[in-house]
């Protein structure tokens, strides 16, 4: 949003221009008051770097996240489902763009973020490196993956960086449709033929653990969490959010008439937290290291799309340049 704006400074302001020391004091006060930092405020370099990293990774996840679902658009079982799926995938593209805009206000050009992703230097959510093998996966992704994303994103609406929080408000408004349409797909399959019900159960079985891992590593293995919480970017720890998510899914899966593939789920009366069975953090690290089932395919597809779209971007820029030149010429003739 507003980063490239030129500032108009008056002579008075020159005199009171703040040093980094008073910038830090101002920043600390904003944090203590739980107020918001805006793009042109002074901020610690590490705060800026953390935000650029988090927001751009979040944006990349939305963009790459279109692939597993776009893959099913042509095979949707009805025109209604096809229209819904297209709307959802279009929303995810929008989420990516809101987030890139927010990251840009921190001074990182869009082009740089795009290039980083294409070149394989950027990260995105590990969840999108799993394959979507059946139509029921569209249900499980909406219900579990978008569901986990909502759990993560709702507290981010209050992130201390203004543009990030505002982007998240917009995103969260749209996400609830995503989760509900997924839930409905599963519900219809679960009430269908035995084969359809089995297909739904199979999708839930495959997406359950990866969706729990979307919240990131356990708290004692999450080096960035503490600082992010001190900066009011993150409001709850990974484990807190994961536990909250498990609690919600336990209730919802009953409505579906399906089960979660986890016999160790229980509510701990002492900690008031939902607990789940062990997760395979080795698998998480493998996918992270680029060795997940679909990493290469996702990157290849993104690169292809970027390269195939190059002529459109160039043609539009050239058209804009020429029409601007023509109208300047016409104005010259007229005067």
């Amino acid at each position, binding site marked *: 949003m507003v980063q490239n704006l030129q500032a108009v400074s008056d002579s008075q302001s020159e005199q009171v221009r703040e040093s980094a020391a008073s910038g830090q004091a101002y920043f600390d006060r904003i944090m203590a008051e739980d107020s918001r930092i805006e793009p042109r405020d*002074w901020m610690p370099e590490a705060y800026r770097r953390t935000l650029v990293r988090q927001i751009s990774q979040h944006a990349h996840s939305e963009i790459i996240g279109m692939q597993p679902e776009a893959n099913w658009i042509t095979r949707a079982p009805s025109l209604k489902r096809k229209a819904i799926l297209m709307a959802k995938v279009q929303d995810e593209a929008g989420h990516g763009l809101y987030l890139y805009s927010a990251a840009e206000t921190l001074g990182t050009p869009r*082009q740089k973020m795009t290039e980083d992703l294409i070149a394989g230097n950027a*990260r995105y959510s590990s969840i999108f490196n799993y394959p979507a093998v059946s139509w029921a996966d569209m249900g499980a992704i909406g219900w579990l993956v978008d569901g986990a994303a909502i759990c993560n994103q709702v507290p981010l609406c209050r992130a201390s960086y203004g543009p990030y929080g505002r*982007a998240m408000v917009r995103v969260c408004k*749209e996400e609830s449709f995503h989760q509900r349409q997924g839930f409905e797909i599963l519900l219809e399959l679960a009430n269908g033929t035995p084969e359809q019900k089995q297909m739904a159960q199979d999708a839930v079985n495959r997406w359950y653990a990866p969706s729990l*891992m979307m919240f990131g590593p356990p708290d004692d293995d999450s080096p*960035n969490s503490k600082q992010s919480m001190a900066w009011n970017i993150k409001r709850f720890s990974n484990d807190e959010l994961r536990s909250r998510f498990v609690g919600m899914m336990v209730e919802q899966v009953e409505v579906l008439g399906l089960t979660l593939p986890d016999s160790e789920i229980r509510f701990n009366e002492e900690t008031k937290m939902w607990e789940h069975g062990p997760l395979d953090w080795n698998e998480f690290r493998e996918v992270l290291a680029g060795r997940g089932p679909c990493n290469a395919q996702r990157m290849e597809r993104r690169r292809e799309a970027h390269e195939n779209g190059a002529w459109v971007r160039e043609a539009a820029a050239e058209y804009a340049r020429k029409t601007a030149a023509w109208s300047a010429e016409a104005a010259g003739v007229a005067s």
Partner: protein
Amino acid sequence: MTGGSTTGDDGAKATPAAESIPASTPWPLWEVFVRSSRGLSHVHAGSLHAPDAPMALRNARDLYTRRNEGVSIWVVPAEAIAASDPDAKGSFFESPQGKDYRHATYYTKSEGVKHL
């Protein structure tokens, strides 16, 4: 190459930003303002990149009004906006301070008088 959570928390340590890649011709940045319904002001919705104003308007429509969020859109080249200096925080907005008499609540003697 890949990360952990959607929000970028994969447990990895932050790495310093890589060398920036030379830009070819990036589309300029536009700020988008949307009037949500007749009778209301346009409000800043966000920003986007587009080669020219007509494309910026079309992109803004697709990006910020997919659910009837607006009846009118303005797009403004970001570089055309002049903004107050955030470093001038105090002094620039100093003058209204201590001027309570600009607010109706300053005048208490008329309390209880109807329609005033």
